[in-house]
């Protein structure tokens, strides 16, 4: 591990330990292909476990993470790079790792990242998809569903509990107020009626 840190320092890169078995190194896009090659050929990280992509819409870029393992498989190194969202494109690494072909195909479909030189950028899971790539964060899946697929329209009698609570509270308040008023009116009435009663009693 110390060896790897010193080797990366020569390339002016920093290896950060994230968890017990997890390390991370961040590179620029231009350096990425050569660094992955040196991980494969020089540092002994010959297994590519996965390629992950994350959409940072606010910063306007995609963050791509390559997870690499040694033959011992006792720790993971994440090689992370960020590319621009507009016209995103990455060098294809399927010639070094055959399994990257399918991972890149998936990323192409789900995020719209282009891989020049990739042989089979065909459909992965979707069929006849003509919207923006679905895992981009500006794709609103609920809106898409509402446009395509009606839900069962029998739940229109649902009530908003907050409105109902307010209504009930107000009704309660009004009832209380009304009761008070009534009580006051009654008391008044009683004070008005009482003399006559007394008169009646006297009679």
């Amino acid at each position, binding site marked *: 591990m110390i060896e790897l840190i010193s080797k990366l320092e020569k390339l002016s890169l920093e290896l950060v330990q994230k968890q017990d078995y997890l390390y991370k190194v961040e590179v620029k896009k231009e350096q990425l292909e050569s660094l992955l090659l040196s991980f494969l050929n020089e540092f002994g990280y010959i297994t590519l476990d996965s390629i992950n992509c994350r959409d940072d819409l606010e910063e306007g870029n995609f963050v791509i993470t390559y997870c690499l393992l040694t033959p011992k498989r006792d720790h993971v190194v994440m090689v992370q790079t960020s590319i621009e969202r507009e016209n995103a494109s990455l060098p294809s690494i399927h010639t070094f790792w055959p399994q990257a072909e399918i991972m890149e195909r998936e990323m192409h479909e789900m995020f719209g990242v282009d891989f020049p030189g990739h042989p089979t950028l065909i459909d992965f899971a979707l069929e006849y998809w003509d919207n923006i790539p679905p895992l981009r964060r500006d794709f609103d899946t609920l809106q898409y569903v509402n446009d395509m697929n009606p839900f069962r329209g029998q739940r229109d009698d*649902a*009530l908003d*509990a*907050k409105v109902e609570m307010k209504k009930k509270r107000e009704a309660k308040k009004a009832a209380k107020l009304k009761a008070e008023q009534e009580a006051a009116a009654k008391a008044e009435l009683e004070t008005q009626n009482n003399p006559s009663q007394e008169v009646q009693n006297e009679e």
Partner: protein
Amino acid sequence: MAIDVKGVLSPLSAIGTLFEHPKTITYPAVKKDIPLGYRGFHINNLETCIGCASCEEVCMNDAIDMVHPDIEYNIKNTSGCVPRIDYGRCCWCSLCTDVCPPDSLKLDNICTHADSNPDNFLYMPKNHKSIGEEVS
């Protein structure tokens, strides 16, 4: 090539199971006991339900609607509403029962229902006090 005698003869030991007691549950006739903790259909104790709509808020499937019950069971019910569950959405994750403040919403161990009309899957929880209560 020598014949693999063991490979030929040992599968025949399966004949021994002919005389074992069958393990089949003949379902409509014999019912298996479903434990009380099983996540089946909802029950709601309307006398303690306070109509707070916590269940509606936590439900990620948007399955719970708040509706008025036929009569007011609990005077302290803040909204006068009780939950009704759309079984075309519910996934029986029991998050709604976990967050219920008065612990009135629960999951029963009754869990089988089939219907020929797909419109008939709005479920009003039965007004039971506890799980496993006998249906009269």
